[in-house]
């Protein structure tokens, strides 16, 4: 089964093709095929995982040639190691859950078949991305997930906001991909290959200059910035919540946005090749994490809170990976846990964040609103949803012994050598706990704030609650594979360089638990007990509150914000930051359109004008034509002889040409004068016609 792992992406692709070409009109069949195929993929992934466990994560590579040229050989292939195996599992599990969940959620949608075909296509792309053995292939699937994301965000394309969001997502991520391409070009130019292992070999052997590695690393990381919604390209993710909620769960929480993290982990050798590049990554991750967490504190849209939370958590992972890279760059035998922490959190986060989104979807399904101010007390009507949601929240907050605790703990552990990072990390952990429970309490406890909606609320059907339960189970237990006491735990299986043996750090565990509990406690006081007035706090810290509530004004005055200069980022990227960051669509898209209007004008009048200039010459020529072709035969004779005389002068005298010119001018003047005198004379002369 392991050698045939490259089949895994093709199951959903098959589903996609079958749906598009054959079963488009049979909705139930379409969804059935799609789910069956993804489950098949899941089983195969499981087999692969087991096989890999059997090999202790020793990698396997298979490839076939895509294009072969002397300067570059591009191939499509698969690279299976522990990380791949885990990611395959994550993707197939979440995808299966979401697809089953969607049976209920999308029940009355007229474009049911299409929805499932998109989901299948997405799953295919994501699996391809995960399984890729080279940068070229990962880029291909990178773009494909972008496409499906676009299609799914804009699935309800009649809504302008939805189609706008799709476009914004696509273009914003593409800006990141731009850097990605440049990074790949640098790699091709200096390494001559895009195969992971070959590139890494060149990086470690020092065949590529260090500054080039840094440059390549930063550019490749741009791709991750876009896709994983990292600062400063994070603006698309909240908007992407316009898509159907299961889609948000699948793409914008569990899988696609994780692709950036996956890329950073996958290409760790490259990033670690340069400490500065790795530091850029860590800083970007931290900034994103912090900003997103602060924004999440005050948002009222349930999905947006989750979206910002996702941003924040992704930033966490990237920060951890970046710090690992920094440590590795300084010390090749580092004991930093960053790599393990980042990938581990990637997995656990996928489960509980998917669960949170699906839970939110369940709520939205029940009350038909996204605004938590219109909710409240739903725990009475939606037992399963409430329970699972709370489990997930506890997990993300990092409460022992849920899976989130283990992974988050490792992330904090990864920052031990970087005190500043550690401080921020703990702060974020606190905020995470707070806003998650703010959300929980506002939604599920207390009195219903909108009676009418509350009346109609009901628990979701089994097709929806089933996946919730399954994911809740994973949210609790998935983290146990990384228990620090396991000798051959997650860190043994998923590793960078060499197998890592991990030692538990009990102090950190306690600290993180305390931080998380205090966050929950604060939320409890404010939103459950109402011991502290939320409004009062908001009033007290009004500027901060407004800042958070308005998402740091990113969307509104993006170009006015002074973004901290980031090491390694080029001026080109700066320019993009300031102008086109909000997509060439909304904000500064205006500028582009205006500019292209200007270019249109240029095109029309200047360049075309040069062509039409011939017409003007002809106009001038026609004056000369009237002048010479006067109809008077004697003038013709005069002109003939005059020209002949001119030619003789021209040839005989040394400065003939000037004489000739002078002669022409004199001739012209004389002719003009005579025309004037003629008109005068004609007035005085009697007509002699008989």
């Amino acid at each position, binding site marked *: 089964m392991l050698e045939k792992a490259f089949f895994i992406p093709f199951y959903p692709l098959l589903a996609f093709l079958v749906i598009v070409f054959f079963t488009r009109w049979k909705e139930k069949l379409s969804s059935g095929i799609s789910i069956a195929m993804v489950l098949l993929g899941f089983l195969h992934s499981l087999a692969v995982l087991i096989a890999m466990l059997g090999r202790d994560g020793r990698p396997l590579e298979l490839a076939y040639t895509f294009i072969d040229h002397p300067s570059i050989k591009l191939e499509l292939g698969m690279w299976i190691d522990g990380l791949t195996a885990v990611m395959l599992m994550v993707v197939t599990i979440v995808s299966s859950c979401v697809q089953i969940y969607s049976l209920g959620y999308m029940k009355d949608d007229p474009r049911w078949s299409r929805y499932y075909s998109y989901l299948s296509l997405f799953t295919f792309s994501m699996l391809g991305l995960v399984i890729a053995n080279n940068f070229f292939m990962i880029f291909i699937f990178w773009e494909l997930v972008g496409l499906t994301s676009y299609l799914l965000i804009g699935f309800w394309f009649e809504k302008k906001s939805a189609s706008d969001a799709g476009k914004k997502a696509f273009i914003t991520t593409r800006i990141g991909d731009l850097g990605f391409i440049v990074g790949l070009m640098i790699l091709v130019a200096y390494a001559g290959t895009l195969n992971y292992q070959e590139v890494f070999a060149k990086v470690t052997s020092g065949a590529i200059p260090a500054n080039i590695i840094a440059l390549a690393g930063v550019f490749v990381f741009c791709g991750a910035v876009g896709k994983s919604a990292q600062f400063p390209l994070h603006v698309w993710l909240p908007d992407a919540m316009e898509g159907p909620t299961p889609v948000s769960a699948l793409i914008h929480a569990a899988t696609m946005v994780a692709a950036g993290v996956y890329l950073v982990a996958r290409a760790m050798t490259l990033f670690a090749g340069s400490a500065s590049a790795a530091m850029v990554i860590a800083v970007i991750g931290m900034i994103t994490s912090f900003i997103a967490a602060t924004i999440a504190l005050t948002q009222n849209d349930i999905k947006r809170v989750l979206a910002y939370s996702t941003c924040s958590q992704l930033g966490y992972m990237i920060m951890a990976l970046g710090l690992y890279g920094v440590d590795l760059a300084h010390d090749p035998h580092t004991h930093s846990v960053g790599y393990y922490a980042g990938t581990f959190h990637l997995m656990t986060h996928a489960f509980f964040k998917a669960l949170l989104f699906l839970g939110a979807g369940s709520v939205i399904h029940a009350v038909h609103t996204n605004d938590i101010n219109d909710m409240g007390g739903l725990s009475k009507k939606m037992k399963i949803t409430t329970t699972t949601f709370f489990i997930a929240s506890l997990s993300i907050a990092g409460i022992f012994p849920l899976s989130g605790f283990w992974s988050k703990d490792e992330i904090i552990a990864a920052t031990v050598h970087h005190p500043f990072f550690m401080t921020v990390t703990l702060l974020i952990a606190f905020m995470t706990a707070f806003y998650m429970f703010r959300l929980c309490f506002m939604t599920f406890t207390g009195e219903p704030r909108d009676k009418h909606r509350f009346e109609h609320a009901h628990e979701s059907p089994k097709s929806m609650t089933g996946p919730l339960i399954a994911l809740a189970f994973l949210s609790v237990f998935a983290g146990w594979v990384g228990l620090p006491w396991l000798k051959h735990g997650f860190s043994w299986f998923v590793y960078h360089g060499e197998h890592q043996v991990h030692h538990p750090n009990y102090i950190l565990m306690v600290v993180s638990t305390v931080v998380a509990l205090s966050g929950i406690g604060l939320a409890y006081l404010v939103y459950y007990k109402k011991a502290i007035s939320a409004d009062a706090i908001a009033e007290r810290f009004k500027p901060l509150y407004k800042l958070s509530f308005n998402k740091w004004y990113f969307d509104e005055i993006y170009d006015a914000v002074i973004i901290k200069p980031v090491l390694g980022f080029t001026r080109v990227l700066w320019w993009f930051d300031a102008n086109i960051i909000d997509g060439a669509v909304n904000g500064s898209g205006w500028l582009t359109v205006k500019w292209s209007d200007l270019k249109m004008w240029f095109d029309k009048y200047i360049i075309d004008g040069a062509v039409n200039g011939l017409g003007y010459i*002809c106009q001038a020529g026609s004056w000369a*034509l009237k002048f010479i072709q006067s109809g008077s*035969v004697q003038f*013709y*004779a005069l002109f*003939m002889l005059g020209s*002949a005389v001119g030619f*003789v002068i021209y040839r*005989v005298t040394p400065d003939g040409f000037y004489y000739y010119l002078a002669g022409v001018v004199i001739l012209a003047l004389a002719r003009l004068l005579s025309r004037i005198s003629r008109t005068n004379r004609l007035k005085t002369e009697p007509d002699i016609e008989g």
Partner: protein
Amino acid sequence: MEMPAYNLRIIIPEVFLFIWATLVILLDLGTGRKNTKSLGWTAMFGLLITGVLLCVTWGGITFNNMYTSDALSVLFKVIFLGAAFMAIGSSFGILTDKIKNHRGEYIGLILYSTVGMMFLASSSELISLYIGLELTTIPLFILAAFFKDDRLSVEAGLKYFVVGAFSSAILLYGLSLLYGLTGTTDIVQMKINLSLLFLSYGKIGPGLILAIVMIIAGIGFKLALVPFHMWAPDVYQGSPTPITGFLSVGSKAAGIIAFSRIFVNGLIAFADSVMKPLDWGIIVAVMAAAAMIWGNLAAIRQDNIKRMLAFSSIAQIGYIMVGMVSASELGIASIGYYMFLYLFANMGAFAAATFFGDRTGSDKITRYAGLSQSSPAFAACLSVFMLSLAGIPPMGGFAAKYLVFAAGIQAGYTWLVILGLLMAVVSLYYYANVVKVMYFAPSESIFDLKLSFTARLVLAIAVVGVIIFGVYPEPIIKFALDSATAFAF
């Protein structure tokens, strides 16, 4: 006094055509001036016979080296005969409707003029060259004014006459100076004498330049070469259309061969670098450039097809002169080929204009609107002519331009060639305009031109010539190249 034994065989075609022309006039008188078609057919038949005779008898020099029957002259004589053939072929409508009394004279004068051209083509001596030129021109003065009640025609006749006689005098003045410089009227001898003169004195002086310029001016008139071109649009517009065609092809070809005889054969020594100051090439090159620019730019504005074609032929002569200034074997060959194709394309165009004018009484280009629907074959033919004149392959005009410009490049006149090509692009504008009017414009007045048999014949010959000799130009080019060897380079 005894008569030297001249080789009379080689003037048989001319003599025959002269006799035939006179017979046509007599035939008209004899049949009471009633027959139209039989006269035309007789004349065309006579032209064919002349052509056959020409092919049988050519080759040789006689009459005290005055009369050369070489390949070049044969090529041009074929062009003259063809032009006359098509001019007469397209005159049937005019002969029937507009000319009541002098049909025989009309045809006879065309034939006389053709005889003159043929003499001219063979003249290798100044006196016979001059007389040939006059025999070409004088009948054309009369033909231009042949519609005696039509003011335009009479005006055309007057203008043609005044400018023609004037330039004839200028030409004579130049020829007299040339005679004075060399003491001979034989072109080949002239060349030798000039070289001797130059060798013995080291210089010749400005007298030669005066002579050269005067001769260029005199023959430039026949060619309608800028700046001696201004009569052309008026005369072309006013004359009966077949005569216009005949003027623009036959008379022009005659001028070209005279030009090439005098300059390329007689004064070629002065094209080489030792005697650069006396070089006539630069003057002709400047005039060629002027012709291309002036003709093309002026043609754009014309709405009368005859006038447009007049300016276009001014431009065409500019292209031809590019071959002339090259003064090389390829140059002469390219001129021959160019004129040969020009015969079909331009005569075809004028013939088409004639038929249209006969039918509608108008020469306005705008009246051609929608012809592609009502008379598709006619429109297709005219389009072929236009595209050929514009030099678009696979029409013959392309190969012709290619050759001419190749000669120009070979001789180092790259600037002239680029200018010429640029102007060829400009020319496309007005040529395509005719096509556009016929094909693109909605057809408002649907009428069938109902072409007569002769009209179809003329158009068919022209179209077939343009296409066949465009796709497979080899025989003509080969012949033209052979003919160019007659000149010693």
